[in-house]
């Protein structure tokens, strides 16, 4: 299959553009996704830091408060000194007063308590008591306080069962109590932060409809997770190990596949050692990406449309002048030089080509005209040569015959006829420069010649001219018949014993005019006949204007399909047939 330039351009452009647009789309979307993730990570990071600092605020408060309580002389005295009942009662009242102040001022504080190892205690507003069925020393946070490694111990979220009848979800900050004069921990002081505080804090953080945050303690235990129940039931899994691992690098990461792809962003608090993890769902973040996708697609569509139009316009702009050229060339191929020049050229390569083409066409046209002119001149020259080549022997012989007849004095009439015929012949042959003559004139000339010849060869030559009158006004190339007749006499009849007859016949045959010169002379051998039209052969006896000359001129004039046809048979005679087109041929005046 051949591809036109236009098609090639179209296909190339479309392929190129589609590829470019495709990459544009991919890269834009990738970039959009990247920046969305980056932005969301930044945003989430700030959120988690915010949550962390809020938690830190609560913890700091608890830390300070326990410090104050632990260092209180009243607490130390009440728990560790055996003093008078009155003094103890006063101390107890003061401690309770302090506790009340704390609990009244802070709704998020669930419990405040000091408990000595031997069971002395002050709890909340004095209306709560220890749960008799629970051993406080079994609590991990209590054990850690006793171990004395840290100034204070922060528990994970848990149900506070130490205080009877309460069972609150809390976060406990506890601290060891010392006697005024000892380094041995002999009691504990703790404050419970209502877990709801953390819960509210975390739940109020919005990370889209599905996103959430969760909090891990320093050991990786879950302090808060919205789906904690599901995690315990193994209905959901959380990537806690990876969070702890990645947190050390301080980076965020993406977990999960397809619709459940999530971005994890971590922030760890120096104070509590807790890690707040923000989880955003990619699908929600990517809603914006989808909007971007639609926008990009729309742009692509518009660009594609524009490209389509531009490409079609461009390919047409390139190929249409070429097509015009082709069309013009096809006309020239047919030989039509009229109206083939290219107009409306542009100032580009094709324009230059068209310009050159126009010049070339003009050049060809000039050359052809010149050629035609030269041809005519050549013919004219030949004609002249032919005219000047009227056999001088004929003139001498005719003159001799006239002299001979005049001397005998018997043939006055014949002398007059012959002399006038000779004069006529000479005048015609020298006279005008016409190339074409009417058949009538040509016949007239030939008849004059025949008259002269028949008078010279009195008993040997007769002639008979029968031409239909309709063709008499048709034109024919000059000197067509006479040389043929001369040829018939000198090569045919001259060698014949007895009387020779030259017949001239003329008629119309369909679109052609046919003239025949028929003699009953010696005839020709077949190979002689076949070569009679070949070339300008000069036999000693010919007058130099060969049959070939006539044939050649006819063909030059009327085309290759016209000309002479020779038929001949030894002993019977020769027939030359002239065929020319019937239509009126333009009369060239040179």
């Amino acid at each position: 299959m051949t591809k036109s330039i236009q098609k090639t351009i179209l296909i190339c452009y479309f392929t190129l553009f589609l590829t470019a647009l495709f990459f544009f789309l991919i890269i834009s979307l990738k970039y959009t996704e990247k920046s969305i993730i980056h932005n969301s990570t930044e945003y989430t990071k700030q959120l988690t830091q915010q949550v962390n600092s809020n938690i830190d605020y609560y913890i700091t408060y608890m830390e300070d408060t326990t410090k104050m309580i632990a260092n209180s002389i009243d607490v130390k005295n009440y728990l560790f000194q055996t003093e008078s009942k009155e003094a103890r009662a006063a101390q107890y009242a003061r401690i309770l007063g302090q506790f009340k102040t704390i609990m009244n001022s802070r709704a998020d504080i669930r419990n405040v308590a000091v408990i000595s190892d031997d069971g002395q205690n002050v709890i909340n507003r004095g209306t709560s008591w220890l749960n008799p069925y629970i051993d406080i020393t079994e609590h991990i946070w209590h054990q850690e306080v006793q171990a004395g490694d840290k100034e204070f111990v922060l528990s994970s979220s848990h149900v506070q069962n130490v205080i009877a009848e309460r069972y609150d979800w809390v976060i406990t900050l506890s601290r060891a109590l010392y006697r005024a004069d000892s380094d041995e921990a002999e009691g504990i002081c703790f404050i419970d932060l209502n877990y709801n505080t953390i819960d509210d804090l975390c739940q109020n953080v919005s990370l889209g409809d599905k996103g959430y945050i969760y909090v891990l303690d320093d050991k990786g235990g879950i302090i808060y997770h919205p789906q904690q129940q599901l995690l315990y039931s193994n209905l959901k899994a959380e990537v806690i190990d990876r969070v702890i691992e990645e947190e050390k690098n301080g980076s965020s990461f993406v977990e999960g596949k397809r619709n459940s792809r999530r971005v994890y962003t971590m922030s760890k608090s120096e104070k509590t050692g807790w890690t707040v993890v923000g989880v955003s769902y990619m699908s929600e973040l990517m809603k914006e990406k989808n909007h971007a996708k639609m926008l990009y697609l729309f742009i692509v569509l518009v660009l594609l449309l524009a490209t389509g139009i531009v490409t079609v316009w461009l390919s047409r702009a390139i190929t249409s002048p070429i097509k015009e050229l082709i069309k013009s060339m096809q006309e020239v191929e047919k030989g039509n030089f009229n109206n083939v020049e290219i107009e409306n050229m542009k100032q580009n390569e094709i324009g230059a080509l068209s310009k050159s083409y126009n010049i070339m066409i003009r050049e060809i046209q000039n050359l052809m005209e010149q050629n035609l002119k030269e041809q005519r001149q050549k013919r004219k020259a030949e004609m002249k040569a032919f005219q000047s080549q009227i056999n001088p022997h004929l003139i001498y012989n005719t003159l001799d015959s006239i002299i001979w007849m005049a001397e005998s004095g018997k043939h006055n009439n014949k002398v007059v006829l012959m002399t006038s015929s000779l004069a006529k012949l000479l005048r015609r042959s020298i006279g005008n420069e016409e190339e074409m003559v009417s058949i009538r004139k040509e016949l007239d000339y030939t008849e004059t010649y025949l008259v002269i010849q028949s008078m010279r060869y009195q008993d040997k030559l007769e002639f008979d001219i029968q031409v239909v009158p309709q063709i008499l006004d048709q034109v024919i190339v000059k000197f067509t018949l006479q040389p043929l007749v001369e040829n018939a006499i000198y090569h045919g009849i001259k060698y014949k014993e007895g009387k020779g007859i030259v017949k001239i016949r003329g008629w119309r045959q369909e679109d052609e005019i046919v003239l025949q010169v028929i003699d009953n002379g010696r005839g020709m051998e077949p190979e002689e006949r076949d070569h009679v039209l070949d070339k300008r052969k000069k036999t000693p006896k010919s007058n130099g204007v060969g049959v070939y000359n006539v044939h050649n001129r006819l063909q030059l004039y009327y085309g290759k399909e016209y000309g002479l046809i020779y038929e001949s048979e030894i002993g019977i005679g020769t027939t030359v047939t002239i065929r020319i087109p019937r239509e009126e041929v333009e009369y060239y005046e040179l």
Partner: protein
Amino acid sequence: MNYRKYKIILPLFLSVFIVIALVLYYNNRMQQKQIKVIYVSKNADTSDFWSALVAGANMAVKEYELDFTIMAPEEEEDYKRQNELIYEAITKNPDAIVLSPGDYEKTLEAAKEITNNDIRLVLVDSLLKEDVADCVITTNNEKAGEIMGKYARELCGENIVVGVVSHVKGSSTAIEREKGVSDVLNISANLEDVVYSDSQYRKAYEVTKGLMEKSPNINVLICLNEYSTVGAARVIHDMGLDKKVKIIGFDNSLEEIKFLEQGVIDGIVIQKPFDMGYLGIVCAVKLVKGELVEKEMDSGAKLITKENIYTEENQKLLFPFWRE
């Protein structure tokens, strides 16, 4: 000339792109289409069990971004009102209805109507007499009974004499739990007696007292719901039989936990209503999306003893913090 070809190629490219764009657009739309689910509950009470179940359901609702409604009769025994609610729910033309049937038989007709309207039906917590639901999520009560029986055997060894304080005679949960207990204990003769509390604390107290007076050699009481457990614990505590009679309870309440801490109750088997609610909604969503789901799912049961009340995991099950 090829002009005609281009006239085909160009719109072809364009239409391909337009089609892609449209597909993307509608794909987007489809994903955003909300699934509508209605939960028809047994009752509107705010007990731990139902609160946990609803909390679990809400968790799934948030996860799948559902259009979710809860409909509940004022009282648990009011199956007529529940049936009305079911018909009302059907007229709202949801994609799925999650149902906790109020009655084993009398809810059946309404439930059938749900499936007749080409709405997916998921049962949670309780069963129906006929298998009409697309998916059922319950505690495997027989298994729960087995857990209780095994623990009773563990506590008392071969000298076991069992009393059972069941709840509603003939109810599916009672039958299954009883079956689980007796299957494990194997010797029905050891099942000294079965009494029914009718899900009332006072009645539980009385029938347990009667049972203990009638069969004083009982050394373990297996109680099959929260009412029965609390009633039995109260009477045993009052009679001063804490040490002599072991109590294995069912379900979870603060009073039970206190008895557990005291040592009056020796163990309780708890269900996982949060999981039940969550799984119920998840199943409904999966059914609507045409995904495969297990026809019957066990949301699980767990034995809690004094020693493991305060483990990280059990705290969450026993003390749901949405209490406040």
